């Protein structure tokens, strides 16, 4: 893990705000990114993640705040003077140049001698499995190949920091899953810090060492995928990462939460009053009799490895999703009454302030 709090950060974002007219696309963000880290900026579209990335690259300038790279303020530097590279969402390969010329472009700008350029281009072509495509033009490449060329063109510059804007967005699902692991391997081999922007939470969970969740220009939570999945800081984060069930109820002063006649003690007690309880589908058990939260099965979705049972209850807006192993869910039928019990330790409680955010659940 990269719990490297004693290390010096490679990139420091200090209270950065970017306004377009009266609207703050990025609103007072503080963030440290460490060396050799695979960092993901995650959020729904319009959350400011791309604007933040473009400020780091030098294509937008912060309205206020500072961006430090290895302790040096890079705000006055134009993009071409920053020792970092950006991989564009559209890949932005130069259409009038071959793959080899695209890779060599960045090195020619450093005025390296021809032999050195050739050596480094060949080396990068080989490590990204592109040697055989070296003399093709971008128009002769598939989407996946273009993506690799765009990555190689940035890697060949050996930047301190590589920014990737939705790098896998244009690829189909199978290829995307393969490239997620491929990107991780390349990041590890090259020893370069990656900062990736994505709206795909699964992608962020698989690839990132640490991630930041953004919403409306603000930073909601920073942490490892596990921390964020297990202990989301608010209902929005809880809902954005993975599948989350929300149950409405009341928090008592003794730290117990009750919804209808079901009561339990969540891992994190909050102040007493109306509250929201969040629980993952894998932490809910279902039984046809006994105690627990009463409900009626509204849907059963078969996923191969498991079944997701949707249970309508009186205390949740959306049906509670329960994950059961495929062969254990056989006795359950749509319409039958069931009782749900939650793994109390894994439940997260949020106080009333959070419940406002939870209504946005449907929008995402």
């Amino acid at each position: 893990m990269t719990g490297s709090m004693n290390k010096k950060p490679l990139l420091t974002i200090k209270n950065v705000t970017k306004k377009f007219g009266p609207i703050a696309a990025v609103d007072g963000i503080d963030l440290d990114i460490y060396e050799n880290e695979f960092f993901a900026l995650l959020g729904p579209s319009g959350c400011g993640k791309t604007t933040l990335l473009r400020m780091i690259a030098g294509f937008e300038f912060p309205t206020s705040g500072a961006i430090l790279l290895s302790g040096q303020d890079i705000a006055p530097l134009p993009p071409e003077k920053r020792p970092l590279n950006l991989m564009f969402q559209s890949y932005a390969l130069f259409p009038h140049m071959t793959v080899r010329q695209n890779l060599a472009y960045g090195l020619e700008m450093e005025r390296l001698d021809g032999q050195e350029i050739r050596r480094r281009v060949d080396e990068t072509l080989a490590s990204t499995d592109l040697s055989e495509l070296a003399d093709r033009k971008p128009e002769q490449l598939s989407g996946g190949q273009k993506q690799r060329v765009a990555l190689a063109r940035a890697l060949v510059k050996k930047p301190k920091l590589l920014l990737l804007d939705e790098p896998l967005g244009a690829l189909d699902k199978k290829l995307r899953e393969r490239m997620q692991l491929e990107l991780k391997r390349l990041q590890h081999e090259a020893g370069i810090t990656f900062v990736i922007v994505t709206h795909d939470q699964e992608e962020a969970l698989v690839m990132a060492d640490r991630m930041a969740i953004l919403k409306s220009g603000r930073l909601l939570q920073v942490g490892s995928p596990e921390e964020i999945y297990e202990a989301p800081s608010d209902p929005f984060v809880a809902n954005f990462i993975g599948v989350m069930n929300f149950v409405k109820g009341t928090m008592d002063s003794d730290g117990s939460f009750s919804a209808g006649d079901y009561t339990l003690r969540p891992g994190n007690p909050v102040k007493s009053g109306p509250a929201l309880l969040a629980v993952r589908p894998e932490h809910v058990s279902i039984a046809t009799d006994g105690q627990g939260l009463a409900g009626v099965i509204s849907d059963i979705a078969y996923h191969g490895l498991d079944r997701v049972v949707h249970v309508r209850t009186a205390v949740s807006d959306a049906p509670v999703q329960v994950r059961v192993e495929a062969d254990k869910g056989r006795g359950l039928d749509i319409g039958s009454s069931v009782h749900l019990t939650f793994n109390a330790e894994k439940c997260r409680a949020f106080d009333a302030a959070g419940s406002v955010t939870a209504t946005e659940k449907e929008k995402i």
Partner: protein
Amino acid sequence: MSYNAARPNLLAAPAVLWLVAFMIVPCALILLFAFFERGVFGGIDYNFNFGNFARVADPLYAGIFLRSARIALTAAGLAILIAYPAAYAITRAPASRQPILLFFAVLPFWSNYLIRTYAWIVLLNREGLVNNLLQALGYHGEPLSMLYTEGAVITGLVYNYLPFVILAIYSTLSRLNPELIEASRDLGAGPVRTFLKVTLPLSLSGVAAGGVFVFILSIGNFVTPALLGGGRFQMVGNLVYDQFLSANDWPFGAALGMVLITLMIVLLMFQAHMTARASGETKGANADA
């Protein structure tokens, strides 16, 4: 046979008929005339030979061809030099303001070609606006003779065809993916090198289209040299005009015309080639954008 298999051909029929009747047939006739001789009292002697083409190569006429080509080339070059920065500036303007800027660039087109050319006579003659302005600014020498010079002809040609060139270059520049420019900067190229290595090469098809356009329309032009070049100034267009309407030597006029048309077709093919190459490139650049 399915109902729509033959229909596209039928739909094209009016256009095809039009082209055959008013383009192919007249061109074929001109081509045919070029191989005959002028009759003693005008008209045509149907005596097949290559004499007219030999005459085109005569230094007197070849010289006029070369001068026309030089003037057309200068006009095309100047038009590109003026139009490129203008088109570039328009693409950099906010998207909401681009249509109005283009409208102003094209505005002169809405007035008559002859009027626009006469306007230059008003501007350039010895008592014209330009000379008056110079005197008002303190110039007391002999008024400048700007009218009826090669410079006046080139000025008129550039002025008349400039909007086409602005449009042609604008259309390629505005289709350029702006991320390509950013990618170049990101990879370490400053604004100047980015322009020379990315923007310019990728807008050459528009430059070629505009340039070929000006060249072709200029080399065959006879109105502008007649009005702004005065009587003593001859370009190929004037020569062809004279052969048909004054000298009554249709076969020689036809031969001159054929040489001119051949030259134009070669240039248009070159331009089509540039456009085809560029469209492949932009397709590649934008497929995943």
